């Protein structure tokens, strides 16, 4: 390997990439448990399909648009690496192979559109959703990843490298981006049949807890791995991730107990995810006490924000806006207060003598990504709605999207169904000596 290569860093980033991959199935279960029984599978597959579509597009043109040498004022990468052309096994990004870096960043590109799906649970055509993922990563995620994550000595992405917006692991590129796209899509698709009237309780809170646990576990790869090296910044990001998440869970639960009188399991899981979201941009620039503060603030604010949909009347089914857009914005903005200047970045926030400068940069990042994501996502949603149709018919929605779109159902608890299938299918195991006659009237 060439000079500068680090086996330790490479091992760490590859493992981190695998951890981030696990977040997408984790998200599938987190969301899957929150919907009603009749649309469980659809919710799971909406995340899983992102693994398939984005992986292929990443190799074809995603990597080069995101991380190719800047082609135009920090807005988009060039096409030098179409089909991963020109990337050899010995090429390095920092101290790790480009292949390891590309694998790690691919996992971010996969989970970001999957996050959006929670906003339109129960009512999107699967083909339309798949098409949306392909178009959205092309027109929104790949460019925004370039703006935020591509560094090239001042000639890289315009937000991160040129303006100095701090986004360590994706508060803007991943969470605000996905959260605002979720808002745009749920406005395009409209409310679920029975929204605000019928109970739409989570069908399996254990699945939600399992999913949030997997997300939390994978998030260590997401945040610590973003150091791209097995070093002190990674260790700091790891600890910040843990304590912010813990604090956010406590913050959410406290809000819930005061407002609604109970500590719910869904609140614990949601608080954890809100904390993970909020610390994502900040974990490479704040102290551990700062991380605790960010977590507590994010937990309380996100718990309050999810009621917005009832007040404003949009049906963000699984609170993608309240958790990801708001959580991402809270974390990104708080960098402007809590950045110490001593962790991964030298920029200091207001509380550490840095003045308001960094807060202004963070606000720029939040607003630019939110506006861009909303406009393009809304246009894409409308285009799909007007052509192939984005939403299933009311009949299908009421009967359950699983059977109509996937010809499957998540569970079969029916004792009647089981005995019927035994009666209607010839038994394959016959007890010795038993007379068998299996004639079935049609």
């Amino acid at each position: 390997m060439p000079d500068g290569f680090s086996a330790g860093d490479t091992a760490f980033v590859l493992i981190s990439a695998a951890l981030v991959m696990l977040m997408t199935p984790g998200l599938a279960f987190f969301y899957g448990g929150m919907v009603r029984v009749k649309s469980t599978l659809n919710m799971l597959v909406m995340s899983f399909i992102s693994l398939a579509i984005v992986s292929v597009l990443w190799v074809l043109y995603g990597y080069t648009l995101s991380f190719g040498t800047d082609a135009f004022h920090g807005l988009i990468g060039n096409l030098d690496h179409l089909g991963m052309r020109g990337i050899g096994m010995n090429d390095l990004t920092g101290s790790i192979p480009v292949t390891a870096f590309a694998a790690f960043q691919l996992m971010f590109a996969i989970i970001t559109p999957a996050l959006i799906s929670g906003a339109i649970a129960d009512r999107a055509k699967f083909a339309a959703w798949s098409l949306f993922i392909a178009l959205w990563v092309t027109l929104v995620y790949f460019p925004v990843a370039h703006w935020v994550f591509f560094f090239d000595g001042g000639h890289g992405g315009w937000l991160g490298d040129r303006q100095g917006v701090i986004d360590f692991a994706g508060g803007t590129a991943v969470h605000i981006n996905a959260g605002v796209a979720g808002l745009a899509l749920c406005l395009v698709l409209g409310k679920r049949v029975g929204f605000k009237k019928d109970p739409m309780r989570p069908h399996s809170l254990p699945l939600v807890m399992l999913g949030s646990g997997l997300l939390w576990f994978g998030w260590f790869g997401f945040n610590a791995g973003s150091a791209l090296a097995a070093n002190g910044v990674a260790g700091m990001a790891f600890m910040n991730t843990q304590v912010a998440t813990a604090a956010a869970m406590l913050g959410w639960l406290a809000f819930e107990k005061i407002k609604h009188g109970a500590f719910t399991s869904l609140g614990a899981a949601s608080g954890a995810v809100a904390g993970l979201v909020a610390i994502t941009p900040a974990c490479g620039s704040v102290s551990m006490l700062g991380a605790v503060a960010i977590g507590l603030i994010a937990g309380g604010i996100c718990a309050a924000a999810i009621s917005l949909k009832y007040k404003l009347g949009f049906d963000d089914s699984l609170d993608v806006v309240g958790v990801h857009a708001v959580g991402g914005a809270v974390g990104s903005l708080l960098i402007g207060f809590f950045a110490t200047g001593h962790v991964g970045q030298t920029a200091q926030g207001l509380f550490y003598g840095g003045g308001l400068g960094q807060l202004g940069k963070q606000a720029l990042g939040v607003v630019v990504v939110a506006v861009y994501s909303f406009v393009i996502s809304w246009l894409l949603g409308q285009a799909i709605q007007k052509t192939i149709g984005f939403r299933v018919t009311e009949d299908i929605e009421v009967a359950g999207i699983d059977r109509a779109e996937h010809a499957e159902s998540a569970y079969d608890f029916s004792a009647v169904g089981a005995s019927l299938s035994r009666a209607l299918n010839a038994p394959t195991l016959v007890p010795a000596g038993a007379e068998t006659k299996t004639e079935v009237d049609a």
Partner: protein
Amino acid sequence: MKLITAVIKPHQLDAVKEALQAFGVAGLTVTEASGYGRQRGHTEVYRGAEYTVDLVPKIRIEVVVADEDADDVIDVLVKAARTGKIGDGKVWSVPVETVVRVRTGERGPDAL
């Protein structure tokens, strides 16, 4: 013959079953049911959205008995199912024209 149907609290099932066995009722059918009476349901909170759950889990017991036993069976059942708290349930009976034991083909009270 009479069909006696009781909708009771789930945790009273064992007491009712034992009382009916002790009285000599030969068989019974139990179904998980849900419903509400005057007490209505309870409230659950999911991410701040409060749902009033009207339908409360209940157990539905059905027994068919001879006409002369019906009142006594109802008394036994009610006594065993009663906790004195709200939501104890209801018992009612309706006439039954025929009962057939599937295995033997016996009809009427002999089939019970």
